[in-house]
């Protein structure tokens, strides 16, 4: 998956101040003896470059490297206005083939010299034009590279092959190259860099720079030997996938919420008009009505009616009054339940000679009990003699 060490670099290993530096300018240099943990500075015949140009035909066999911006770490408005463009570079296939094995087996890694040149150019970013000379001195010829910067921005590279450094015409070739460049960019600063051996060039505004430019404080970009470079669209595709996934999750959430909302709206709509009082009050009211026990009152009424019919059917007895307790025991109305019998009945009856009023009263109660099956009691002091002929008897049923 994601190789983090590759992403962030192995800083300690790639610190060129710790390892040996070797300049690699020809395919033969790769085959030669390189000490372990060497940092190879790639230049000369092993690399081709183009600023904002289509690749050379030679790059068909060369392996493209990650694009560099043609300036380093310059995100100023000025640089952006100058429309920074990419530096395309490709490395020799022979080098590319061996990068991985050399790295894994012996810790040898490779850096493009052009990165150091671009970094160096930042020292001269206040100058309008700077011409940096770099190259590789082989035995048969010198690979001579000229980089032209405007305010630290790489605008052109010129790669050429000139006489070997030992040749008498070497200096002349150099001057020829420089003069043609300076004709185009008059008054430019000329910087002469390692690994080219130092050369006295009177008449030029010249700075000499040694191999310290290949020392990096931060891990540089390593050469990449992979013939199929990583798909540059992968970050975009991954981000798009994340966005789409997030949106999908969000959409599911929203639809779930909307559904819940609709359910709730339906629930509230179907019963919108039924609210007349809080449900707690209605429930208390229902409980209260149950406590009123109307069934009990109905039963008393029925009992009283039965007794009344029995008495009415008797030729001598007459009902004077009937009382019915209509408040049930569970009634919680403010009027206290009075301790009264459920049913009271006052009967007028003719008195019979030879029998005491109590005997007569109990005779009636027994008769009513036999007829109705109810338990009846004669009230205390409930027997009154109205006249010689009549008795009034009050009977209670609990």
């Amino acid at each position, binding site marked *: 998956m994601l190789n983090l060490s590759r992403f962030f670099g192995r800083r300690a290993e790639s610190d060129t101040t710790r390892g040996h530096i070797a300049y690699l300018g020809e395919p033969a240099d790769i085959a030669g003896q390189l000490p372990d943990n060497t940092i190879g500075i790639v230049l000369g015949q092993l690399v081709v470059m183009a600023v904002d140009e289509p690749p050379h035909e030679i790059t068909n066999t060369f392996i493209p490297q990650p694009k560099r911006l043609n300036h380093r770490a310059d995100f100023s408005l000025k640089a952006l206005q100058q429309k920074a463009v990419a530096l395309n570079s490709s490395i020799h296939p022979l080098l590319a083939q061996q990068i991985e094995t050399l790295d894994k087996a012996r810790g040898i890694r490779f850096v493009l010299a052009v990165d150091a040149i671009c970094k160096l150019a930042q020292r001269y970013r206040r100058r309008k034009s700077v011409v940096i000379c770099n190259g590789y001195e082989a035995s048969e010829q010198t690979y001579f590279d000229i980089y032209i910067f405007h305010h630290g921005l790489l605008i052109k590279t010129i790669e050429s092959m000139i006489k070997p450094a030992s040749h008498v015409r070497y200096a002349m070739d150099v001057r020829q190259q420089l003069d043609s460049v300076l004709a185009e960019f008059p008054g430019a600063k000329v910087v002469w860099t390692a690994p080219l051996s130092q050369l006295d060039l009177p008449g030029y505004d010249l700075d000499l720079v040694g191999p310290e430019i290949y020392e990096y404080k931060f891990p540089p970009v390593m050469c990449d030997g992979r013939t199929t470079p990583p798909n540059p669209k992968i*970050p975009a595709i991954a981000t798009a996938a*994340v966005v789409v996934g997030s949106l999908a999750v969000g959409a599911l959430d929203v639809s779930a919420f909307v559904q819940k909302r609709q359910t709730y709206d339906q629930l509230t709509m179907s019963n919108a008009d039924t609210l007349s*009082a809080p449900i707690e009050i209605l429930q208390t009211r229902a409980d209260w009505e149950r406590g009123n026990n109307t069934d009990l009152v109905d039963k008393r009424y029925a009992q009283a009616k039965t007794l009344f019919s029995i008495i009415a059917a008797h030729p001598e007895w007459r009902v004077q009054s009937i009382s019915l307790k209509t408040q049930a025991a569970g009634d919680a109305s403010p009027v206290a339940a009075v301790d009264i019998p459920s049913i009271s009945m006052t009967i007028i009856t003719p008195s019979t000679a030879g029998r005491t009023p109590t005997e007569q009263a109990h005779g009636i109660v027994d008769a009513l009990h036999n007829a109705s099956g109810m338990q009846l009691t004669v009230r205390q002091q409930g027997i009154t003699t109205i006249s010689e002929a009549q008795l009034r008897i009050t009977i209670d049923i609990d």
Partner: protein
Amino acid sequence: MSIQTKMPHLVALALSALTIHSAHQFHVDMKQRIDQQTTLIQAREEWNNQQAAMQPLKDKWQATMPVVEDLIDQYRIIQRINAMQYNLRLNETGIVIADPTPVTYNGKPTGIMRYPLGNQGANLVLTASDYAGAWQALKELQSRPDIRFSRARLENEKGTATLYLENFALLARTDAK
């Protein structure tokens, strides 16, 4: 490795992290809203079920018990008792209507007001032409949900029947119509 070449990766990583973070926030937020809504729905369903269970009683009360707005004066109170429909006669001259009091049950309100009234102290005295009619009237009065009395006494004197309803009160709901 330089920051430069990995810039697209870093940007993608940052954007993805931002997106995932926002999406997660949104998801958590929506989850909370959905849970809230679910709670609301459950509460509302319970409420609806309670209301539905209460509906028959509510219909009954609607039909049988007046609201307090119906009992604004003596005329309407007497009209509400409607003694005439039971062939009962009510002597209106001595009627005293006490201040209504709320009815509570186990200390909780029932939303019912009690209007005590009587034309003989706390009793309401009604007369009927005969005993059987008074007896029938009593049955109907005591089954009325909007009328309460603690005891009914039926006196049979010289061919007229008198109905004494002790601690008589008319009930009315405080419900909204």
